[in-house]
């Protein structure tokens, strides 16, 4: 894979500068074969994740944002090995878990848990809340009699539910409460890291805030590390310490919250930030809006060179010829995968128009 090769120097640098990370992924690739015909020949590959390097520090929240089809969900599932990586390396707490078999993964699963988007689909409707929350304990042989019951009740209290809810079934709860149950299940084994895959996007606004606050409170209380995957740029801004912006299977920009929201350098990040409607009519007609043309290309047949070039207003010949590496670019410190990266702050203009101080922190 020539693409992973071109990114190799970046990986080496990341390893050299980052010591105590909890998770490190290098050149991670996940392709899904496209099968066709009677004999199910593989006729192509959907390049869902196509060479991603990331590190996650203990106790931090790394936000992963992008639109549908950018590979953020596949990335999350591949990291915890619900999907087998096609290539690349996953190192958790210093241990290479890339090649571990299902059985060998079991002890690692105690440390990395996942919370899914849809609280209606991710909880077994035939199980009581006690069974759902207690299941990870049972699988790991940790659910013993009254102690197990007590642990489940304690977990329910931790997520703001009453222990009396333990005997009920998921359908008796609203979306927000179900998501709390999902969080309680994820917490059962005292994990160090939780992959949160769109944890609040199926919830109503007033309930989203409850769950976001719960997640933050749990992080403070238990020192949890989060990989927070979402398409909602406002929620990601609120919860994340650092953010990776993904487009067509690749990370196109990676930086601190201030880097991404106040000093974005990738045209795609800038377009995203300018496109989100902001809840203030005072901004009408005062924001400069970058309306991208066209749609995201198919991940089965991504453009050559820079994957964003087909929708980018800055694209030149070089963009089709050379894949831009994710490295710091002139004018900024954080890594950006763009040949023509430069700082522009769509939100600064927005807050100025709204009579607010600049969001730069």
């Amino acid at each position, binding site marked *: 894979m020539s693409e992973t090769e071109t990114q190799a120097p970046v990986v080496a640098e990341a390893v050299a500068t980052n010591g105590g990370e909890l998770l490190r992924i290098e050149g991670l690739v996940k392709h899904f074969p496209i099968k066709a015909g009677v004999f199910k020949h593989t006729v192509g590959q959907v390049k869902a994740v196509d060479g991603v390097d990331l590190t996650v520090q203990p106790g931090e929240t790394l936000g992963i944002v992008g*639109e*549908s089809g950018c590979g953020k969900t596949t990335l999350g599932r591949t990291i915890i090995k619900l999907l087998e990586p096609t290539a690349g390396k996953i190192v958790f707490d210093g241990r290479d878990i890339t090649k571990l078999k299902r059985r060998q993964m079991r002890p690692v699963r105690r440390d990395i848990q996942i919370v899914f988007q849809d609280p209606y689909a991710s909880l077994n409707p035939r199980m009581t809340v006690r069974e759902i929350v207690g299941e990870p304990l049972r699988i790991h042989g940790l659910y013993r009699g009254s102690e197990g019951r007590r642990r489940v009740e304690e977990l329910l209290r931790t997520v703001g539910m009453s222990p009396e809810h333990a005997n009920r079934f998921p359908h008796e709860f*609203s979306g*927000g*409460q179900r998501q709390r149950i999902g969080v309680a299940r994820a917490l059962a084994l005292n994990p160090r890291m939780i992959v949160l895959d769109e944890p609040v996007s199926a919830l*109503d*606004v*007033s*309930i*989203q*805030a*409850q769950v*976001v*606050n719960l997640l*933050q409170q749990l992080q403070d209380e238990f020192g949890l590390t989060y990989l927070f995957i979402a*398409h*909602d*740029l*406002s*929620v990601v*801004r*609120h919860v994340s310490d650092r953010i990776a912006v993904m487009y067509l299977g690749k990370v196109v920009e990676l930086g601190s*919250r201030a880097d991404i*929201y106040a000093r974005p350098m990738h045209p795609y990040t800038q*377009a*995203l*930030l*300018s*496109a*989100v*409607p*902001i*809840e*203030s*009519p*005072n*901004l*009408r007609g*005062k924001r400069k*809006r970058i*309306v*991208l043309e066209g*749609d*995201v290309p198919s991940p089965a047949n991504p453009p050559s060179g820079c994957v964003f070039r087909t*929708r980018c207003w800055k694209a030149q010949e070089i963009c089709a010829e050379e894949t831009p590496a994710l490295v710091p670019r002139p004018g900024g410190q954080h890594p950006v995968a763009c040949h023509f990266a430069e700082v522009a702050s769509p*939100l600064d203009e*927005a*807050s100025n*128009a*709204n*009579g*607010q101080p600049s*969001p730069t*922190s």
Partner: protein
Amino acid sequence: MPEPVLSVNELTVEFKTEDGVVHAVTDVSWELYPGEVLGIVGESGSGKSVSTMTLLGLIPMPPGRVASGGATFEGEDLFAMSKKRLRELRGGQMAMIFQDPMTSLNPVFTIGAQIMEALLAHHPDMKDDAARERTIHLLETVGVPFPERRVDQYPHEFSGGMRQRAMIAMAIANDPAVLIADEPTTALDVTIQAQIVEVLKAAQSETQAAIVLITHDLGLVAELADRVVVMYAGRVVEQGDVFEIFNAPRHPYTVGLMKSLARLDAEQQRLEPIPGQPPSLITPPPGCAFHPRCTLSQGRAVCRTDVPVLRSPAGEQETHRSACHFAEELGAADRVGVGSGVDEGT
């Protein structure tokens, strides 16, 4: 003031279910004036969709039932008219855009055939050539590239954003006076949403239609609506000019919604959620349905016993109304959400 094109008067809609009667919409009134965008906002179960779909005869009855109230389109009673007349209006002078363009387009007909069908249904005398030409023009208006070619393609050959454009083209085909858009951008990605917002604006300027924008997305409302109706548990809790609603909300639910939002344009310490859960619509709380979650009510008896009427709080414009017994107590300090209490730009 001009006559409203669409008006809803004390509409109450119920659904009979195994668990009991669901009070989906209770005593809802609003008017839509020519050329304006009216945003109807609320969370799931607030009745925002049901109240509007009822007007179009799109709610299956039974189990649904209009228990009381009425609605008129340009003075004509929508509930008393014949099915034939309602069909004439629907897709003609009252057109709809739905959330999910995949399920609202027929997969076995080309995009062009479906738009032409909509045209011919309301203009039986139109020649096929003219209909095709008009269809291509409509696709061009909504920004479908190569309309001459794409007119003959099937829905599966269109991406989500393009399908939504085709839906909008179909909706404006017959120059509607009213366009009802139910979560028109919800199923779409942010960058595609931005495109569709532009298309909606273009569609409105082409047809001069009044738009009812039903959505849970306060950002979209802030951007597009002229006036706003806020719904909670089947009732209108606040209504007013979009600047009044966002900059000086007068209902604790509206205030709570604004405060619970994560903001794109500001750093926040902690979000302030509305406590508790939305109420059951089968056994809604007595009095004000919001009182169990309300920070202003604080156990005051009147909130539990009396349904608050929608009225103009002291010191507000006549057009700004709130259904809260204590709307006057919402001081500036309570109301200022992040980035809201600013009145420059109004």
